[in-house]
């Protein structure tokens, strides 16, 4: 049945990439500390990101304790509350989500999925991790300096971020925050250049761009976006650092602080907001696009069906990536910028809903007429669809400039962005871990623990963030230490807040079970074999599991896209990308 050569469609192009085995490290330190193996760097990145993410999780608990049970916990002062809010947001967005999707999944999956032996610049890749670790350590250090970490909100808006009315503003908290961000961006740039160049230059023979799994498309596009967006944050951080330390006035107008005139003058607070959101909006998609890509692959593999409309999916990723650079000011409708900007940014923002909706349709249409295995990755993918659709639709409220006005700066916004860029991408991270853990360790994660983890996380997170929209709708602003019982509340929000807080505590606690599962299954998980999900993409075809340094014996040749599932006439319900099988009739390869 397998036809290897009689068909000229199976002729491979000449090899363009020299097959060079990266030099193996011989010392223990070279292998396990300063490793240049992308797979090991991926684990270092992920481990660090999860560790600091746990700090952010605990901070969210403390924050919810205050909101759910105000006045009960004496140690949660207003200062402490705003420090919790700020550090929770910053850690989750930058140091967890960005780092784990690009540094973690990017490093592990890109070389394996494109058929490379490693990233193209392994040494720079190693440096990327160590600079990231340094950034995390500087961030952690800010918890221990006098005055504590900054409490400026994760958006760090000047002038308050550098003044004494904000925790850490007149002390070192804000300085360490800005230094840490600058380090993070330096570290990311080293990694990001690697991811982009590896995808462009190190694909194996036969792996055309339009045969790449959507995971790679998502991470690749997000990386290019990050390389373009982070510089805006970089300069904003440097300028604010100058304002704080050298007395420049980039973002500081003449102002009076608590009765005292300061020496600043002539700067523009809104300029910072433009720079911040020129980075900040693409950042949403820097997190979302890898999640879009990964979830597409999870759905295809576990529904045993090709992803529906592959080409449309690729173009949707690219178009979303491009459009996301011209929507940033929708975060600033009530910032005091010229109101006519509202027309432009509302239009671009709502247009971006169209390619995003296409992605949702295509995920669901992939399920249609599939052979759906309700595995843990599939369950998390379904959880992603629900939370992403919910969070995406509330984006239509906030993107539509005039509807945003009453909702802006309320808890509705908090609920929206947690649903769409918190819960939804984290659902994908969990699904991805259950999916690729067997490749990384050779063992399956425990199913029973995984089921408990899924159900509590999915239902719990929905119970946290769905009702939170209504706390905002009723008028409660975000970043409020205490709302009290103002007259405008149509019903007291105390009970609802207590419910949300309780759900948040439970959802947080069940993550410990997930971490325990990661540890427990390392030794006692069921042996997985090389390809337990019977998946077609390249990373499942490695000669060894876990793949060794260098990944392959000889570089694999690729004959088809990553989605040949349930092809009529094929001997099995999947055909690996390395399999040169051709049907007797028409060519179904793309």
């Amino acid at each position: 049945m397998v036809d290897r050569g009689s068909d000229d469609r199976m002729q491979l192009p000449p090899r363009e990439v020299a097959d060079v085995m990266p030099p193996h490290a011989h010392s223990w330190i070279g292998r396990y500390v300063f490793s240049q193996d992308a797979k090991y760097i991926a684990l270092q990145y992920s481990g660090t990101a999860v560790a600091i993410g746990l700090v952010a999780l605990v901070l969210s608990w403390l924050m919810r304790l205050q909101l759910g049970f105000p006045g009960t916990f004496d140690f949660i002062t207003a200062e402490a509350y705003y420090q919790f809010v700020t550090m929770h947001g910053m850690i989750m967005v930058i140091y967890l989500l960005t780092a784990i999707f690009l540094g973690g999944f990017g490093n592990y999956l890109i070389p394996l999925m494109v058929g490379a032996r490693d990233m193209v610049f392994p040494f720079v890749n190693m440096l990327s991790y160590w600079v990231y670790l340094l950034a995390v350590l500087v961030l952690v250090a800010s918890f221990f300096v006098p005055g504590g970490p900054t409490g400026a909100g994760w958006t760090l808006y000047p002038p308050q971020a550098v003044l004494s009315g904000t925790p850490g503003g007149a002390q070192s908290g804000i300085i360490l925050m800005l230094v840490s961000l600058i380090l993070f961006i330096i570290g990311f740039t080293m990694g990001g250049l690697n991811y982009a160049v590896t995808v462009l230059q190190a694909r194996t023979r036969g792996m055309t761009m339009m045969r790449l799994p959507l995971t790679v498309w998502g991470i690749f596009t997000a990386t290019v976006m990050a390389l373009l967006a982070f510089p805006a944050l970089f300069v904003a951080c440097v300028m604010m650092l100058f304002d704080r330390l050298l007395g420049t006035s980039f973002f500081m107008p003449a102002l009076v602080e608590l009765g005292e005139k300061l020496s600043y003058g002539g700067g523009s607070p809104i300029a910072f907001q433009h720079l911040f959101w020129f980075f900040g909006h693409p950042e949403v998609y820097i997190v979302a696009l890898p999640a879009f890509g990964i979830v597409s692959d999870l759905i295809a593999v576990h529904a045993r069906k090709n992803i529906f409309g592959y080409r449309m999916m690729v173009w949707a990723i690219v178009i979303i990536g491009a459009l996301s650079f011209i929507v940033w000011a929708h975060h600033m409708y009530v910032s005091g910028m010229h109101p006519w900007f509202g027309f432009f940014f509302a239009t671009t923002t709502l247009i971006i809903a169209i390619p995003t909706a296409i992605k949702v349709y295509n995920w669901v249409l992939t399920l249609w007429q599939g052979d759906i295995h309700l595995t843990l990755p599939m369950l998390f993918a379904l959880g992603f669809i629900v939370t992403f659709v919910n969070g995406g639709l509330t984006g239509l409220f906030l993107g539509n400039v005039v509807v945003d006005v009453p909702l802006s700066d309320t808890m509705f916004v908090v609920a929206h962005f947690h649903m769409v860029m918190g819960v939804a991408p984290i659902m994908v991270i969990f699904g991805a871990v259950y999916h690729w853990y067997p490749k990384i360790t050779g063992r399956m994660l425990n199913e029973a623990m995984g089921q408990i983890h899924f159900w509590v996380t999915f239902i719990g997170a929905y119970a946290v963030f769905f009702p939170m929209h209504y706390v905002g709708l009723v008028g409660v602003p975000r970043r409020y230490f205490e709302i009290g019982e103002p007259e405008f509340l149509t019903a007291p929000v105390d009970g609802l807040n207590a419910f949300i807080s309780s759900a948040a505590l439970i959802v947080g606690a069940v993550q410990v079970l997930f971490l325990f599962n990661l540890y427990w299954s390392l030794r006692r998980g069921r042996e997985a074999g090389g390809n337990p999900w019977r998946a077609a993409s390249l990373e499942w075809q490695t000669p060894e599991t876990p793949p060794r340094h260098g990944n392959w014996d000889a570089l694999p040749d690729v004959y088809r896209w990553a989605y040949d599932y349930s092809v009529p006439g094929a001997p099995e319900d999947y055909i690996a990308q390395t399999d040169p099988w051709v049907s007797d009739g028409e060519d179904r390869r793309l």
Partner: protein
Amino acid sequence: MLIVVALVLIVLGSIAFHLLSPWWWTPIASNWDYIDNTLVITFWITGAVFAAVVLFTAYCVLKFRHRPGHRAVFDPENKRLEWWLTGVTAAGVAAMLVPGLFVWKQFVTVPDDAAEVEVFGQQWSWSYRLPGADGVLGTADAEWVSGENPLGINPHDRFGKDDLIIEGGEVYLPVDRPVKLLLRSIDVLHNFYVPEFRAKMDMVPGMVTYIWFTPTRTGGFEVLCAEYCGTAHAFMRGYVTVVEAEEYQEWLQEQLTFEEYASNAGTAQPVRLAEN
């Protein structure tokens, strides 16, 4: 199969919560019921899409779940279906965007007869300034702020001398009369937010921003700061009282002008201002 039940219950539960929960926006007290209408349209469109997508997903999982011998259908793409869905989505988006932009046009177009009132924010209190008999607000800047001149009114500007200064966080507005609020801060970002008026806008040090609205019913309404402004952000509250025209005039008579305010604060002070 639990997941199918869960998906259906999430849709039904969300709709039930939306319809039955007591947490809804506070009754409006301004002319911006257009905003409420646009919001309601958006709720219906997005709610329908949410229910449709999640229920369809649940149906797919139920119908096409794995059973022995079952095999998926190979179906790479369907151009017609994809373009059709794109078109429907674009139409739905336009149905929300177009009315939204019309209302935004009104929102940013201040009527000529709107009365001007300055809102003044600082960490962490509200003050107000009304034009005096000349009907014009004098210029002001953070540079002029002092203990005797808390709002930083330019002492050399004759238009400023009769401006009325309202400290203490409560201001009156006449009902059914459009008002343009000029928003000014001298330290950090603030945001003038009265839930009943729907409108809100940041106050940015170094510039003057604005919103306008027409109060449509009398009563007292709480003012909150909606842009994070430091540790006491949540406690930066004030009060707007909307009253009938006659009562408004009475209240106006009781307020001090800048000149009166300055002389009350101490006789030496105009000299010091001149030195500045």
